[in-house]
């Protein structure tokens, strides 16, 4: 069952003979673990959990603001203040063991999360969970506006099976039973094979067999993609054109749309002179995001953040405040210099002096192994020298770096933000005063730059608990303003939910033209893609 | 060599004495003895009494493995003794290292058996000798003085001209030259006692003679007490004033060299003397067949479980029942008339029941 061989055979014969799809992930050998709750499971790591366990609602991760597609729930309704949710469960859905899926199962799936803190990975404050007929009603102890998608995309497990587990968070679920179109066929540490079920509540997918192979590293994954033995993956490939696309330009495609999360240069806003927003703004003005995108992120991996608000587009297009609608990042060295001199900085020769007359220097840190971030830093270092800032790059080791960031012991570092259904997650992660801790104290869950802005904290609070859309928009606009003017983080790139795929045997993949789902094989939306794929040439 | 009787021994004071000297080397236990309580050991030297006198050479002969070298090393305090007493000028000494050991070294020096092993291959002759001089404070103050002392040392052992040998490494020397360097090193300390463990074994007869003459000369000029260990009984006869015979860790006979070699008393000594090749027995080859009486075919006894009683009894043709049970003490041999003149000074004794008063001869 050599997939490579299969592919060759298939091209020789008729392409309709292809019934399987080879998915790959660069995650190393797996242990048999199909527990969908655990990020460490092979199901999660390779992404096939979504072929077995289905969500209540399918939400397009690249368009989080759109209303989701009904999936196991046909209808859902939030109370005005987002503390209550009422779900209507689809009829006629059967688990792969033949038993029907009921509201009980759904309620149980919520109850599991509520009862096991370890399974409640989104930290949703569940209140009551009740199942009546085909309805499930949930209450929450506080507004779930910002978490609404997380609640709706909860996947459903069969109560009959799961209630037998002694500890659901420690069970490897050797025999996964779900409502999805596929069931487990075989497992090896390298490859997990799924086969299509006999029946499904929707049309059965065309692909009869899914093979999820775990390659040990990016190089191996890339090689597999290049030679066609993996047809779908998510991997960082430097120089992807030569290494991947050029190997079969007609079929080797990739699409890396952004979602609502960003990467950027976090600045320790407590350190002088970087507590001065003018300096941060000036830095922002000289950073060459094209270089970062092309050289650091290989021209595809983390898409550019264009809006000055740091909100990735098109995912966050609709959230951008009117005043910033057309404002895009652009390198403007003169503008930066002007900004600096108004703020009292002086550029003496090649050296920028702060208002007190001290030269401006900073250390950029990131773990040595993170080649893309380190490349980004090299570029930023170069860019900053244009306005006389002398940057040095410190390639710390990962753990000490993490500790330093956590405790605020850094000048500036490339780091990510949280992502979510709205830009709230990004801003909350960057600016929330509620999670602010003094420098030297760790255990923070964001605001690494120790950005202290009561105004921002208030706006965040308002946004999360707003009763209506106008209030929300107002709060978000305020946040955007703060972001642009204070620049606690200089955004460089957006997070992505992309993927690389081959159209040789299967077509119907999402792309720029057809953005029905993100192209990443480990996202929930992968199920949508699988359902949408058709044999090439058919 | 001239015979000893020409000059009488002038001084008779005892320099180094050993009393009841015993050395057992513990043996690693084997499977069978693992759980038994008894500890096994090589009884290398047992209850040895030995006296070294100023200006006298004492020879120690015996079969290989009988513990001769062990005696020398015990006397040099290189091995801790199992029991017994070593007295230097009448004072018991037990030293393990440090300054006291150095002081002891200055008086008691040893020449090792194997000149190939006892010179450090990475150091030159100069180094070896300089150290010997320096440690004992005889190097002199200036480098010229040191050079002078070195030269004299080499001249004394007839390595001439000294400058030809000073900067040589041991491997560049012949066996005889090495043995002479060893001797020079021991002399560097200007000792009172010289423990010479087979100092001439590797040499051909002519060189051997030269070295022995040197030692004799030193003995006479510096009044050295010398312990001369050898296999060559003939040389003991010529060179030593007194000869001791050792068998399986014990002394079995001792006395004036001439007496011991010419009139051996102990059966083992007789065997030894009998076995020594003799060019004067003219129908040579045929003779060899009639090897001297030896019950065990020349095999030495086990030293781990030494024979009870007299250790020689399993090989002894004169063995009596008593021999296998009781350890013979030293029996003074009444000086026989023809020997009285020669043996007068040192009493001739043997540890053999044959010489018990009234024993059947």
């Amino acid at each position, binding site marked *: 069952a050599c997939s490579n061989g299969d592919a060759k055979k298939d091209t020789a014969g008729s392409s309709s003979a292809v019934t399987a799809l080879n998915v790959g992930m660069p995650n190393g050998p797996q242990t048999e673990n199909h527990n969908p709750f655990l990020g460490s499971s092979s199901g999660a790591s390779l992404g096939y959990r979504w072929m077995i366990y289905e969500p209540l609602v399918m939400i397009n991760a690249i368009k989080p603001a759109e209303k989701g597609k009904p999936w196991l729930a046909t209808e859902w309704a939030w109370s005005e203040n987002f503390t209550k949710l009422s779900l209507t469960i689809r009829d006629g859905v059967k688990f792969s063991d033949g038993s029907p899926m009921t509201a009980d199962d759904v309620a149980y799936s919520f109850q599991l999360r509520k009862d096991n803190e370890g399974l409640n990975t989104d930290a949703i404050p569940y209140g009551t969970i009740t199942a009546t007929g085909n309805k499930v009603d949930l209450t929450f102890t506080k507004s779930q506006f910002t978490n609404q998608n997380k609640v709706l995309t909860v996947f459903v497990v069969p109560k009959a099976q799961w209630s037998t587990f002694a500890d659901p968070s420690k069970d490897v679920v050797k025999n996964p039973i779900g409502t999805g179109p596929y069931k487990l066929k075989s497992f090896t540490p390298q490859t997990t094979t799924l086969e299509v079920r006999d029946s499904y509540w929707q049309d059965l997918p065309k692909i009869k067999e899914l093979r999820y192979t775990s390659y040990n590293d990016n190089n191996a994954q890339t090689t597999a993609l290049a030679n066609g033995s993996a047809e779908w993956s998510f991997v960082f490939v430097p120089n992807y054109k030569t290494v991947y696309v050029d190997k079969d330009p007609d079929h080797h495609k990739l699409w890396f749309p952004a979602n609502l999360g960003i990467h950027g240069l976090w600045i320790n806003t407590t350190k002088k002179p970087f507590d001065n927003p003018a300096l941060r703004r000036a830095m922002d003005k000289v950073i060459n995001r094209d270089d970062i995108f092309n050289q650091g992120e290989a021209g595809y991996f983390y898409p550019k953040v264009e809006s000055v608000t740091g909100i990735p587009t098109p995912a966050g297009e609709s959230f951008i405040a009117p005043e910033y609608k057309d404002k895009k990042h652009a390198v403007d060295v003169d503008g930066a210099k002007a900004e600096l001199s108004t703020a009292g900085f002086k550029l003496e020769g090649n050296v920028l002096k702060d208002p007190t007359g001290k030269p401006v220097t900073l250390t950029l840190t990131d773990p040595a192994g993170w080649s893309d971030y380190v490349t980004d830093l090299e570029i930023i270092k170069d860019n900053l020298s244009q306005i006389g800032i002398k940057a040095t790059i410190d390639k710390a080791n990962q753990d000490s770096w993490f500790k330093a960031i956590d405790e605020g012991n850094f000048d500036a570092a490339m780091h990510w933000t949280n992502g979510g259904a709205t830009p709230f997650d990004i801003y909350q992660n960057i600016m929330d005063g509620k999670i602010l801790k003094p420098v030297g104290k760790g255990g923070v869950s964001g605001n690494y730059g120790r950005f202290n802005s009561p105004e921002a904290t208030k706006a965040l609070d308002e946004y999360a608990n707003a009763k209506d859309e106008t209030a929300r928009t107002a709060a978000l606009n305020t946040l955007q303003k703060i972001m642009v003017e204070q620049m606690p983080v200089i955004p460089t790139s957006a997070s992505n939910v992309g993927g690389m795929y081959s159209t040789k045997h299967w077509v119907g993949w999402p792309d720029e033209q057809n953005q029905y789902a993100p192209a990443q094989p480990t996202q929930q939306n992968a199920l949508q893609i699988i359902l949408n794929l058709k044999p090439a040439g058919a | *060599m*001239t*015979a000893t009787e020409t000059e009488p021994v002038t001084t008779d004071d005892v320099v180094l004495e050993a009393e009841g000297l015993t050395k057992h080397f513990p043996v690693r236990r084997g499977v069978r003895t693992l759980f038994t309580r008894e500890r096994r050991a090589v009884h290398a030297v047992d209850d040895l009494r030995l006296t070294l006198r100023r200006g006298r050479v004492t020879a120690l002969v*015996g*079969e*290989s*493995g009988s513990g001769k070298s062990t005696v020398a090393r015990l006397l040099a305090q290189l091995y801790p003794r199992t029991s017994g007493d070593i007295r230097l000028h009448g004072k018991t000494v037990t030293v393990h290292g440090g300054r006291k050991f150095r002081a002891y070294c200055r008086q008691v020096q040893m020449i090792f058996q194997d000149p190939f092993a006892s010179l450090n291959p990475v150091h030159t002759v100069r180094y070896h000798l300089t150290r010997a001089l320096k440690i004992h404070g005889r190097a002199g103050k200036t480098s010229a003085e040191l050079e002078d002392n070195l030269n004299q040392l080499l001249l004394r052992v*007839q390595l001439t001209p000294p400058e030809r040998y000073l900067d040589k490494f041991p491997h560049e020397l*012949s*066996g*005889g030259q090495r043995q002479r360097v060893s001797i020079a090193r021991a002399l560097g300390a200007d000792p009172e006692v010289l423990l010479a463990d087979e100092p001439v*074994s*590797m*040499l*051909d*007869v*002519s*060189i*051997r*003679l*030269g070295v022995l*003459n040197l030692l004799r000369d030193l003995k006479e000029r510096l009044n050295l007490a010398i312990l001369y260990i050898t*296999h*060559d*009984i*003939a*040389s003991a*006869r*010529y*060179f030593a004033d007194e000869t001791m015979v050792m068998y399986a860790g014990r002394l079995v006979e001792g006395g004036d060299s001439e007496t011991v*070699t*010419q009139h051996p008393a102990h059966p083992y000594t007789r*065997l*030894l*003397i009998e*076995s*020594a*090749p*003799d*060019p*004067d*027995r*003219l129908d*040579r*080859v*045929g*003779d*060899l*067949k*009639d*090897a*001297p009486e*030896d019950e065990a*075919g*020349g*095999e*030495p006894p086990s030293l781990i479980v030494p024979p009870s009683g007299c250790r020689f009894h399993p090989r002894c043709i004169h063995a009596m029942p008593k021999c296998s049970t009781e350890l013979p003490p030293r029996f003074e041999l009444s000086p026989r008339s023809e020997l009285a003149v020669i043996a007068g000074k040192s009493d001739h004794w043997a540890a053999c029941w044959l010489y018990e008063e009234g024993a059947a001869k």
Partner: protein
Amino acid sequence: MTNSGLKAPILEIKDFNVDYGLGEQSVQAVRDVTLTLHRGEVLGLAGESGSGKSTLAYGITRLLPPPGVISGGSVIYHPPGEDPYDVMALSNAELRKFRWAETSIVFQGAMNSLNPVHKVSTQMLDVIRAHEPQLSAEARLARAHEMLKLVGISSDRMDAYPHQLSGGMRQRVMIGMALVLEPQVVIMDEPTTALDVVMQRQILAQLVELRERLDFSVLFITHDLSLLVEFSDRIAIMYGGRIVEEAKSADLYKDSLHPYSEGLLKSFPALRGPRKELAGIPGSPPDLRGMPSGCAFHPRCPHAFDRCSTEIPVLGVPEARNDPNRQVACWLPGRVPVA
């Protein structure tokens, strides 16, 4: 050579030369040695240490360690009833066949001569198998047993490892092994120096006995002149790489012709009889790299005269006594060889 009174030659060494190293650095350790070993005789070889005795022994079997090379001469072997041939001209394969079957060697250090990791029996059987492959396993074993018994090692020690045997036993094993193929010539290089006299006599006695039964010839090397005189038929004395004198042992002992032999004999103490004066030889052995001109012994010779320092004396039957069994290399009057 016409050596009346002796049996036929078995090994003829002619003009034998051995060098250590080549070119300018070389040491000429054995020079122009001519020596004949006769059937059934014990030929003793003595001399100063470093005079090349071992080198000669190794050289004639071509076992010299590098950088030794044989730079000239021949060693003619006379197998009984066959044509003689030159050992120096043998190919490696022929040499292998020749060795041990025709000449065997007992080296000085028996403790190092035995392979420490194999049993005595294995090493013994190895030899028989290599040279007489047609023999059955039992026959080989029987032969090995018999041989060890001859040298006085009981058969229960057959399976002992070398370290389990005493030095004397090892030495005897080596002698047994040397005789196991019943060779014509046995070369022994100081086989008993490490042993005490009792053991030494034991071993030699056994050897004498065996020789009578097996009729081999022995080349016996030792420093121990008394032993040599007692044990060998003829003695050759080496000095500075050359044979300086060769004679029947009694003759040599009583009346040596070369000043060096004389010196040697005057140097060793006798155990029995009246105490003699020991004279010794003054001076020290020559340096092989820079040999004195003329007779190598002349700087130490009490009788040296002009000719000695310029001309190298030849080894030959001295004019004075026309005994073909006596040869000497000396310019002293009466000892110059007959032309």
